[in-house]
């Protein structure tokens, strides 16, 4: 049964697929479940199922409804934008193959938005906090300027092998969704509040909450870059302030759900070691 090829599985293939979607009409509105049914086709992924659902815009009871909204980009699991909770597990919908999902759970496919981010509509979420975390730890190499800085220093093979997996992060949010220490922050716009005021209020709220494993890992990556190192102290300051690496609870869910298999818990431990050294230096070096 395990080695079942297309012939063996085709017997169990249904003609219709049942899909249950957790919908939400807008930010802050109550979510509700809705059932849809689409024609089965070979080699579908959840995105193609969602395309069919949007095209028919009709529930399995036959009621006409607004098309289900979702986010997607690359369709090859490198952009991270189509991340959602599929059959209870957070993952990318483009690489969630329907045949595999039906093998595990033949009755239906359950789709819901990530629970740690504010829902914009249906399966679309606002992941701006994820990117704000990257800003907090300055996850970039500071090379502003027009002059030629010449060739950079050589990076040893060992270091390359350590850094390459970290560079594969696509900011999808799986690690944050699975993390018990990363809690949802959802603010509502106050009456008469401008875009800038609302954005500033959100950033202030994000700034004291846990940065998340992805940002810790990126801080470790850029701290080991020969030029990125220039910002090491600022990154360590961010990682040792409120919501820094000490807010990690070591549940290690992040590394278990990461679609890129990034060694996030190793990055967290490295950041922890660096934070210990940084805290001692801050106390006794100056």
């Amino acid at each position, binding site marked *: 049964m395990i080695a079942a090829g297309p012939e063996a599985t085709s017997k169990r293939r249904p003609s219709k697929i049942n899909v249950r979607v957790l919908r939400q009409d807008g930010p802050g509105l109550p979510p509700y479940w809705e059932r849809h049914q689409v024609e089965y086709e070979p080699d579908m992924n959840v995105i193609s199922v969602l395309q069919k659902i949007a095209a028919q815009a009709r529930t399995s009871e036959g009621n006409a409804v607004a098309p289900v909204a979702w986010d997607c980009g690359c369709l090859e699991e490198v952009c991270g934008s189509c991340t959602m909770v599929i059959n209870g597990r957070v993952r990318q919908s483009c690489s969630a193959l329907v045949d595999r999902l039906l093998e595990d759970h033949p009755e239906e496919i359950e789709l819901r938005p990530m629970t740690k981010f504010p829902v914009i509509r249906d399966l679309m979420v606002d992941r701006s906090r994820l990117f704000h975390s990257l800003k907090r730890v300055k996850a970039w190499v500071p090379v502003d300027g027009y002059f030629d800085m010449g060739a950079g220093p050589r990076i040893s093979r060992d270091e390359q092998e350590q850094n390459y997996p970290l560079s594969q992060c696509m900011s999808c949010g799986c690690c944050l969704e699975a993390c018990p220490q990363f*809690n949802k922050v959802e603010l509502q716009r106050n009456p008469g509040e401008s875009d800038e005021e609302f954005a500033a209020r959100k950033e202030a709220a994000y700034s004291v909450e846990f940065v998340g494993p992805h940002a810790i890992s990126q801080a470790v990556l850029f701290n080991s870059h020969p030029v990125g190192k220039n910002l090491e102290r600022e990154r360590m300051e961010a990682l040792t302030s409120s919501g820094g690496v000490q807010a990690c609870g070591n*549940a*290690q869910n992040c590394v278990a759900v990461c679609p890129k298999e990034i060694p996030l818990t*190793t990055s967290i431990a490295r950041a922890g070691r660096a*934070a210990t050294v940084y805290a001692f230096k801050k106390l006794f070096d100056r």
Partner: protein
Amino acid sequence: MCVHLVTNSSLASGVDVFQNAVFAIHSLPFLPVIEWLFIFLPIIFHAVVGIWIARSGHSNLNRYRLAGNRRYTWQRITGYIAFVFIFTHVFHLHGWFHADWWLKTVAEPIGMAQFDPYNAASSLANAMNSLGILWPIFYALGVLACVFHLANGIWTAGITWGLWLTPNAQARASYVCLGFGILLGLVGLTATGAATRTDPAAAKATEDQMYKVRVEGLMIKPNEHKRTDGRRHGHSSEASPGPTLIIPQAVTGSR
């Protein structure tokens, strides 16, 4: 906690061994200062910070049934158990405060503050068996929760402080912590079992003899406040000031 459990488990080797260990602890200078500075205040600090940390997270074990997530959730559950256990335990045996009015009007009438250091094993055995099997079960569960919390806490602290980095290193550290936890758990259960099974009457005879010899040998100062006779029976009987006065005179007279 390790020192505490090992000391307590010495009761399994005999009432005299345990009583000697308690005498040794009570011979430390400024004992209340040591108690507050190195035991009570750190525990209160840990309790406050621990509850704040536990409330900062939301377990999702129902959705992600992973080993690490299980340990994360149990670390918080055992933390809460340890909080209730330690504060009850200190109240039950120590009484929280030394003030007489507190001990006489609040703690002792409700069966708390039961431990008398110079009658260590007998007062402990009486306290453990005062509510049938309830106290032994409470202590066994509480000790095991504390041991898990410590062993698993050493492992997670090792990650947070950056001692063990890679999954392999963390797995090795995990085995070491597991071994440590099992060992300390056995020590803790030995202590609980020994306290429950000790015969109070026989233990008290030994302790009183040891007290007498220690006082006569100038190894300790007489202190009826730390004795069952002085504390519990002395206050109700009229003869209570007697021994407290006679022994110091005997001591000074022999010098």
